[in-house]
């Protein structure tokens, strides 16, 4: 032992960074994910501009700008690090605009953005912590301005891009397909028109085809999984087919799933990370729940629209769904560690 020198070598001149493993990172970060969502929303946006004119861009620009501004201002005010560069606020802003009719007054998206970003998102801790989908909560809040939120125009009618308000006292809303479906009639539109989006409705919800295209992009980029969109739309399809209000159940089902905000909701809103379950099983339960509530509201509710409310209701259950769908830990019989019954090998997969 006496031969052992105590450590105490001269400190080397260059020291390297010492950090915890892993030492490499996947290239995706929050910003690239949000950017992918924005890219996926673009086809529907371009089609909306084609259909409803440049007022669409004005509304989107206001909603996105206000969202980013409110987020940055709140974080500065609260002396937090300003993280608007994750561009999650821009996605929220886009979805707020997508959820309003093109006739909405220009102050409405700003109010929506304030409610979504400050009240729903930041007051509950910011990204990843909010328990309601900010854009949907804002949509429901904005329904307080009922006329402004429900005055739809026929496609091809392009309201002024700059007028603060385009609604007059004698404005009449064009009937959306959902209003017709509610009373059990098939809308006077072809399936092709429904798919492409040649009908009245909110800015971003009309083209099921282009929304699905965006959804495919998100699936390919692995931003979302198939569970929620498939189980959600599937449940609506099944229920409207089985409990059709029309003698032609197949047609009735087709128009139901292509109407309203179902595609926008199922692909872009119900899949919001913060407010949807984490596991595949949980996502399936969540999607089925959303589908069930959507049909109930569409059939029996006061509103024609069911998507926003049903997703918000399911948002509230996410924590519990996570809890009951905890994955079974490798080598253990349950999701709770250490509960593997030692010595027993009755389960074929477990040792």
């Amino acid at each position: 032992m006496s031969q052992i020198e105590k450590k105490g070598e001269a400190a080397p001149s260059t020291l390297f960074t010492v950090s915890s493993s892993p030492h490499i990172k996947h290239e995706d970060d929050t910003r690239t994910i949000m950017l992918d969502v924005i890219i996926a929303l673009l086809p529907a946006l371009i089609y909306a501009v084609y259909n409803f004119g440049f007022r669409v861009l004005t509304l989107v620009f206001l909603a996105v700008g206000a969202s980013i501004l409110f987020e940055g201002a709140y974080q500065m005010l609260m002396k937090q690090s300003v993280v608007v560069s994750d561009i999650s606020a821009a996605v929220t802003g886009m979805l707020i605009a997508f959820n309003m009719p093109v006739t909405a007054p220009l102050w409405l998206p700003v109010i929506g953005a304030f409610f979504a970003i400050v009240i729903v998102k930041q007051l509950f801790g910011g990204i990843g912590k909010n328990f309601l989908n900010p854009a949907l909560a804002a949509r429901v809040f904005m329904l307080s301005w009922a006329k402004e939120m429900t005055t739809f125009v026929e496609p091809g009618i392009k309201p002024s891009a700059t007028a603060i308000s385009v609604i007059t006292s004698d404005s009449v809303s064009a009937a959306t397909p959902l209003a017709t479906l509610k009373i059990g009639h098939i809308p006077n539109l072809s399936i092709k028109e429904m798919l492409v989006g040649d009908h009245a409705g909110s800015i971003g919800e009309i083209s099921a085809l282009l929304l699905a295209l965006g959804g495919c992009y998100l699936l390919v980029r692995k931003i979302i999984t198939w569970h929620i969109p498939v189980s959600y739309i599937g449940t609506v399809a099944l229920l409207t087919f089985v409990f059709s209000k029309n003698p032609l159940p197949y047609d009735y089902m087709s128009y139901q799933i292509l109407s309203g905000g179902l595609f926008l909701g199922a692909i872009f809103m119900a899949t919001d990370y913060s407010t949807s379950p984490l596991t595949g099983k949980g996502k399936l339960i969540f999607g089925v729940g959303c589908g069930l509530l959507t049909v109930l509201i569409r059939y029996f509710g006061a509103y024609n629209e069911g998507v926003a409310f049903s997703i918000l209701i399911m948002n509230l259950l996410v924590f519990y769904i996570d809890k009951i769908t905890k994955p079974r830990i490798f080598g253990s019989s349950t999701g709770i560690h250490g509960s593997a019954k030692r010595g027993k090998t009755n389960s074929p997969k477990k040792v």
Partner: protein
Amino acid sequence: MALSFIGGLHIRGRKDARRSEIEKMPSPSVVTIPLSLNSEPAVSVGDAVLRGQLIGFAGGGRSYPTHSSVSGTVTAIKEKTTPNGEAEKYIVIQSDGLDAISPDVQPQTKRISEMTTDEMIDIIFRAGIVGMGGGGYPTAQKVRAALGKATRLIINGIECEPYLTSNHRVMLENSAAIINGTKILMKVLGIRQGEIAIADNKLDAANALERLAAGSELIKIRIFKTKYPQGAERQIINALTGKEIHVDKYPHDAGFVVFNVETCVAVYNAFAHGMPLIERVITVSGDCIKEPKNVMVPIGTSYAALIDFCGGFSKKPKRIICGGPMMGVTQWDLQTSVTKTTTGVLAFSEEMESRYNNPPVCIRCGRCIRVCPMHLMPNYIAMFTVRGDYINADKHGALSCIECGSCAYICPGQVPLVANIRTAKTRILQKRKAGRKSDGMSDGNAVQ
């Protein structure tokens, strides 16, 4: 179809050194050889030693004998930290450049078929062989623990860590030693068939081994899907049989025993040449290394000498990693020496850092859960750890974590998930050791 398991992820291989043949590094002027835990030096300062000579006696527990990797003179016996940060005794030997081999290194005189199991295990023990995939568990002890329990022998050539190519090259260039080493291990353990596990990004190695094993019922080559962390023992067994081994249990409890391919070669060398474990193949790579290579390195070589042998740095490195990029340990200087468990030495520049500068935050994308090979919810464990709630971290399976790094690698919010889970594990184990009641467990010292 290639075998696989649920979870895990594909990571870009960046196996830059895969085509460079193993180069034998000449003995450096000085080697600093670590002794195993609890060992005592077998030499004194000033002693002349030869290559392969015993320089450290095994003590109790998990210790094993240590041998000189060069011939020369012992200049110091000192204490210094291992790559993992533990204090250890090291023997410093000044090489005379002759590499004269010790007369103790002699081929076995007895035929294997005439040896008893104890004799065979003793040969493995005296050669100082440990798990060379990075585990470092003494092979003789592993064999003894598996005796009579294990019915299937798996030789692990998966090498799922990016950048690392040493196992790949060993399988290509030293196939015969692997086949023979496998047969020796089969004989020692009394197992009738050995299985060599190879990922499908190394089909050339699989073919090389297949050719040698052709027609033999004794050795089977199993092809696995290239996925991280397929090389983990439990994931290999799961992919092969569907069995899940609880983290508290060992593979031999389920009838398996797994050895790394290079361990297998070391076993062969011990039997065929009587050569103890004094050198190993290491991948030197990373964006700062001028010539990424696979090098046969004498144990005790300093990283500085090893990197010089690979042409030095092409640009200023920020991090030096012992092992692979997913599970390796960063070193603060180049004085660290190569040990029996060093699989790779990587040098990364600043450019390898994440470009995303926002503070870490979980956005609940669920990717960590999808990739976790142990089917945990890493985000929840990390969240409980940050709160100091180790009871819930334990309930969510923190102790089942194998620290493979998949979750932290994939996390878009840049949350240091593995670091947090490690904190939780340490606290939970401390707590269990202390055997106190479940209060006072929180202290909130976790990495944010």
